[in-house]
């Protein structure tokens, strides 16, 4: 039985805007699963449907079910979903700017009934993975660099000790060097701590390199899913998501017409 299974869900915003149109995906315990797709495909909406945060916006799951650990969770408030072990690291590095880095971590352990000592231990663990946060622990989070803020929001996720951590575009707007560093740590979280990861990315290359399984999403639906090994060799994925031409060279602007070719999975 998968840890998370999303079955045929439909999501509507403002009672009229249909954004997810029968989306299904599943995540096995211990895996890293990537969801790839262009801007506006509905990736963030998918994560919010799972974490329940959709309820804080004008969005609603109108059809289908979401099951975590065999139990239906789509009716639960975000608070209860966090308590069950799902943590969404939201897109855009939304740190609490007026709190220090350390206070950000403390706030994230809100659902954890742990002692002061245990709390400090978890904070040290976060610092072990992100030593730079320790140097800045008493500085206001709003003044951290983009990379440090990304580390902080992932660190917040670790504080809640989730079984499933969902990361929404952690690479967005970061330098390749930093992206490499952060992806390495995501792999470590998965291998060392056994945290299952659901990773949403536009940086398909990086995501496919660390994931076990990938889903390709377009227009509110999954259009393709497979092991990452197979996806990396799929012609369409190579062309449209990895930016390669048929010859395997990097795409240039002259090849822009390739974009216009119909994608095979749509036919």
């Amino acid at each position, binding site marked *: 039985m998968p840890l998370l299974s999303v079955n045929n869900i439909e999501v509507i915003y403002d009672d009229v805007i249909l954004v997810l149109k029968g989306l299904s995906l599943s995540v096995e315990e211990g895996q890293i699963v990537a969801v790839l797709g262009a801007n506006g495909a509905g990736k963030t909406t998918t994560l919010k449907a799972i974490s329940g945060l959709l309820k*804080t916006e004008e969005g609603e799951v109108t059809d289908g079910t979401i099951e975590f650990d065999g139990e239906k969770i789509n009716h639960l408030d975000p608070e209860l979903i966090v308590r069950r072990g799902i943590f969404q690291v*939201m897109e855009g590095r939304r740190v609490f700017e007026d*709190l220090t880095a350390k*206070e950000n971590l403390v*706030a994230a352990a*809100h659902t954890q009934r742990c002692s002061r000592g245990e709390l400090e231990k978890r904070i040290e663990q976060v610092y072990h993975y992100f030593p730079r946060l320790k140097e800045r622990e008493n500085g206001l989070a709003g*003044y951290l660099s983009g990379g440090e803020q990304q580390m902080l929001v992932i660190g917040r996720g670790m504080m809640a000790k989730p079984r499933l951590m969902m990361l929404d575009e952690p690479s967005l707007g970061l330098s390749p060097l930093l992206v490499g560093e952060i992806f390495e740590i995501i792999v470590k979280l998965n291998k060392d701590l056994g945290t299952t990861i659901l990773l949403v990315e536009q940086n398909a290359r990086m995501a496919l390199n660390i994931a076990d399984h990938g889903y390709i999403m377009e227009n509110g639906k999954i259009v393709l899913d497979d092991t990452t090994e197979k996806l990396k060799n799929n012609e369409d994925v190579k062309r449209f998501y990895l930016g390669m031409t048929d010859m395997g060279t990097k795409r240039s602007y002259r090849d822009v017409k390739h974009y216009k070719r119909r994608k095979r999975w749509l036919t």
Partner: protein
Amino acid sequence: MHELLQLIVTGLVIGSVYALVAMGFALIYKSTSIINFAQGEFVLVGGYICWWLYTMLGIPIVWAFLLTMVIAVGMGMLLERLVLRPMIGEPIISVIMITIALATVLKSLVTILWGTQIKVFTPAIFSQKAIHFGTVLVSEVYLWTFGFAFLFLGVFAAFFKFTRVGISMRAVANDQQVAQSMGISVKRVFAISWSIGALVSAVGGLLVGNINGINITLSDFGLKVFPAVILGGLDSIGGAIIGGLTIGILENIMGSYLDVYLGGGVKEIAPFIVLIIILMVKPYGLFGIKEIERV
């Protein structure tokens, strides 16, 4: 010169109570975005309840004090749950109208229950005996007032800085959705904010009531919170405290030096003149809305 010093010291004492009430106001505003026009009535209710418990029921002052605090917390929670929570998502003007209505209801209730006569804590709790600090004279009751106001300010400052609940409250004030994403209950934080807001106001009410006696105009005392928080910046708790102290000192000095020329009453309007000037010069207050630029 020593007259000025004297004015500053007594102004500081009253200012510390403004600071306490202003902190409650800023807290409610910061976490729930509601401008609470009933803050002054919380002061009024607190003063009356403590007086009633102590003078009418004869409960020892320590218990009367504690009981007043418990009742204030309960009142804050109840009002949040029954009156303000249903207003979440309603237009801002409706929410403002609700707090104004609440103010009127509380004031009427107090009048119905206790009339309009001035009430005095009897037997007196603190003596009016003056104590000398060099050339400055401070009565004992003023010292106690100042001490209690600062005790409460200190306790809450520490609460917001060091406790996990306090930190999660600041997190909600900063970004509600992200706070929810980590399982923080926004509803619970709202309830705690209103409770603390009511609690500190009630303490403010019993402290001043103890100095001058209590009648219905005690709620006007709460009105002075507006100049204080506007001075400090609506959304800054530290600013509210500094604003409260400043207003206390300013009104005392302006009242004392200008009354001779203007024929009295300056003290009552001075804070509001300051308010208007600040709004013209520095609309966000001295410490308000310093959004951090994202890097």
